């Protein structure tokens, strides 16, 4: 730990007066092991078996390094590959792996390690959750489906240090996509020997800045600095311990008591208190994450009528939700793709820039036009997953729609049930959210494509699909940006969803730490962190 009170043999602790106990940070110690509270227990250290949660990013991002990695600001930089060439049509990438890239057991990182990793990602027997992220790779989707006539997978080892990846269409964001943990290599020499058990602690090897030494399930994962890492000289920490802390209050307590140096989330309700009492430790930063309500556009649902969707959207006072209900912790959304995405300007849903009265009047008029009135009120079912914040927002929405004569039935269910019901289309208005996997607008807009499993509302627009399709073939970044922005404008003018707010990342970081930079992806590799010089 950076500062330690309880480990045997450590220095005496400072006796803080009770008053100052509220601001409890003990003095820093000499040890350089970082103690991080992550939001939950990772499903696995094997990229083919991870569950798709943000805390897996925290752990696997430190243990493994892909072809491309992230710098402290969340920008992508070369990782295990020192450079790459792209063909003129944008479909063939040739990666040159670093000569000094090694696994923690001393074996070199070779191109076969990446070939095998991608093969396992698309192997139907593994059911890898992130396979669809890499569908741009030729043959990826067909292999995942188990098609016997699938083309050869477009990942090829040219020689030990040269890797060729062939895509189905030019995907300008492909390098940033490769910074995702699911594109990490696997130690092929270990997979050959141990198969799926290659992640066991007694023989696991990693190629990132840290390598794990023990994993007590639901207690902690201990990792030590990987001496074989090519940039090991720049890594200041001796080790990192990851503690899954699902209870946010408990995480805050442990942080205040000095047991944790970083906590990767805190309850938004505590933000005011934290600002006053731990101002140097609290970090709130815009994130590439949104919160919205899907509007069911299938036949038989009142929300299938565009006038109804427009009315509902106009009547929502997003500033009230962001400020009064969420305590100023989030920013009201005007579009679906949050601001801050690279090569993209945030769009605004038409009509949201009007003042409240005009919007209310227009909403009322639209509903009347659609045939709803005092003797035929609009009845909606609104589904949300059970959290305090979701409940407050749902109640607020119902209250905002009531003056229009809308009767909203609120149904809450636990997470798994909520999403099962959304997927089955059993709702009119359904709460959804999305945290970006990679920094590109298509990661958000893809949700609204007619064939996306996450398109809960069943939004079907040929114009939108066509624009997205065009964009996926476009190599020129500016032209692509135009197409994507046009696509979003199409969806917004169709009132395909009801965007509510743009989420923020919430972190608690010991002020004695240097190297932490808030970034929109909320990815913070421990290799850049160090104890501040005294």
């Amino acid at each position: 730990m950076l500062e330690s009170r309880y480990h045997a043999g450590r220095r005496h602790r400072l006796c803080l007066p009770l008053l100052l106990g509220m601001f409890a940070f003990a003095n820093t110690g000499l040890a350089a092991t970082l103690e991080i509270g992550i939001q939950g227990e990772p499903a696995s250290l094997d990229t083919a078996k991870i569950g798709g949660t943000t805390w897996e990013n925290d752990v696997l991002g430190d243990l493994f390094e892909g072809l491309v990695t992230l710098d402290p600001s969340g920008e992508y930089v070369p990782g295990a590959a020192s450079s790459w060439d792209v063909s003129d049509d944008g479909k063939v990438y040739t990666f040159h792996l670093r000569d000094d890239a090694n696994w923690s057991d001393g074996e070199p990182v070779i191109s076969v390690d990446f070939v095998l990793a991608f093969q396992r990602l698309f192997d139907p027997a593994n059911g890898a959750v992130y396979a669809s992220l890499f569908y741009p790779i030729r043959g990826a989707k067909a292999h995942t489906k188990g098609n016997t006539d699938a083309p050869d997978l477009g990942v090829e080892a040219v020689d030990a240090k040269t890797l060729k990846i062939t895509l189905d269409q030019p995907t300008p964001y492909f390098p940033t996509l490769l910074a995702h943990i699911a594109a990490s290599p696997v130690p092929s020499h270990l997979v050959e020997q141990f198969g799926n058990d290659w992640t066991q602690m007694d023989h696991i090897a990693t190629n990132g800045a840290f390598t794990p030494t023990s994993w007590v399930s639901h207690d902690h994962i201990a990792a030590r600095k990987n001496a074989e890492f090519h940039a090991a000289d720049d890594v200041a920490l001796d080790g990192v311990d990851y503690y899954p802390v699902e209870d946010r209050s408990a995480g805050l307590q442990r942080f205040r008591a000095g047991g944790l140096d970083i906590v990767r989330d805190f309850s938004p309700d505590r933000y005011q208190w934290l600002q006053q009492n731990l101002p140097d430790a609290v970090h709130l930063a815009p994130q590439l994450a949104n919160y919205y309500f899907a509007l069911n556009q299938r036949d038989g649902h009142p929300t299938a009528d565009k006038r109804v969707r427009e009315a509902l959207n106009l009547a929502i006072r997003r500033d009230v939700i962001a400020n009064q209900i969420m305590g100023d912790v989030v920013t009201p959304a005007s579009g679906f793709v949050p601001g801050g995405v690279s090569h993209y300007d945030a769009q605004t849903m038409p009509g949201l820039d009007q003042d409240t009265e005009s919007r209310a009047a227009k909403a009322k008029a639209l509903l009347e036009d659609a045939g709803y009135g005092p003797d035929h009120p609009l009845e909606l079912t609104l589904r949300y997953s059970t959290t305090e914040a979701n409940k407050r927002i749902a109640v607020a929405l119902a209250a905002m729609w009531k003056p229009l004569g809308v009767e909203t039935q609120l149904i809450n269910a636990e997470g798994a049930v909520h999403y099962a019901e959304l997927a089955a289309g059993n709702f009119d208005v359904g709460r959804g959210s999305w945290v970006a996997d990679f920094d590109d607008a298509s990661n958000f807009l893809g949700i609204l494509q007619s064939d996306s499993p996450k398109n809960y509302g069943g939004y079907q627009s040929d114009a939108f699909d066509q624009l997205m399709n065009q964009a996926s073939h476009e190599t020129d970044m500016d032209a692509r940006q135009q197409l994507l922005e046009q696509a979003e404008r199409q969806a917004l003018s169709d009132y395909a969803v009801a965007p509510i707010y743009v989420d923020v990342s919430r972190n608690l970081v010991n002020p004695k730490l240097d190297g932490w930079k808030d970034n929109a992806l909320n990815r913070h590799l421990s290799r850049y962190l160090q104890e501040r010089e005294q």
Partner: protein
Amino acid sequence: MLIYTLKRLLQAIPTLLIVITISFFLMRVAPGGPFDGERQLPPEIEANLMAAYHLDEPLPMQYLRYMGNLLQGDFGPSFKYKDFSVTELIAQGFPVSLEIGGLAILLALLVGLPLGIAAAIKRNSTVDYVVMGTALTGIAVPNFVLAPIFALVFGVLLGWLPAGGWNGGALPNLVLPVVALSIQQIAYIARMMRASMIEVLGSHFIRTARAKGLNEGEVIWRHAIRPALLPVMSYLGPAIAGIITGSVVIEQIFGIPGIGRYFVQGALNRDYTLVMGTVVFYGVLIVLMNLIVDLLYSALDPQIRYDD
């Protein structure tokens, strides 16, 4: 006694089978599955996952497959925590819950029994009222209120103990969770002991003992305690089984890697194998604890014998 024990163990098998079967099918009734979540999967990936875990087979076949594995001691892989099998999760988590729970029960007995006896002996005195009043508070205040207060006061404000974490079971990390867990048990045991003691002290054979001229100390410690312990024993049997399988609240708040949270988390995650594993484990424990209690009964009360 041995034959009785064997008979009881044999009788437990059909009980367990019924419990397992009902749990297996009841779990599948709940809407939502292990792979439903915010990250809705494309149909081909979901199909792959279902096939990998045999969830696409007809339910009776899945049941037979599960029972077959169970008879070989294989609880299956966890659907959610894929680097661990259910056996490994329970094997890692149970000793932790056992340690915390065991110490809590020990503390509860060490504190609760004397308090209950004192309250019974000094019935309707100040001692009695204080003890019983405190006990009532201990029962009424829930764990999830007490535990964070302990963590705040002793962990954050005073800094005497860690606010959370297991740290391999180091003594400072044990104190707060054990004390928090024991408070309610102390209260129950004290009240139960008091009530039971009062009843025993009013019975005929105690009157006889006093008439014989025995001093009060002998009456209480040689003659009254053992029968008075019987109701407490009955309570303790299932209570111990419940406590040593972990308290979700205590484990969440103090970050203890026990198996208590697996009951709740497993259900919420629809992690079928983990839930079944914990159900089987808990069922076996209950059966064993009840058996031990019944055997202890016969040790405590000479009138109870299990000869056939």
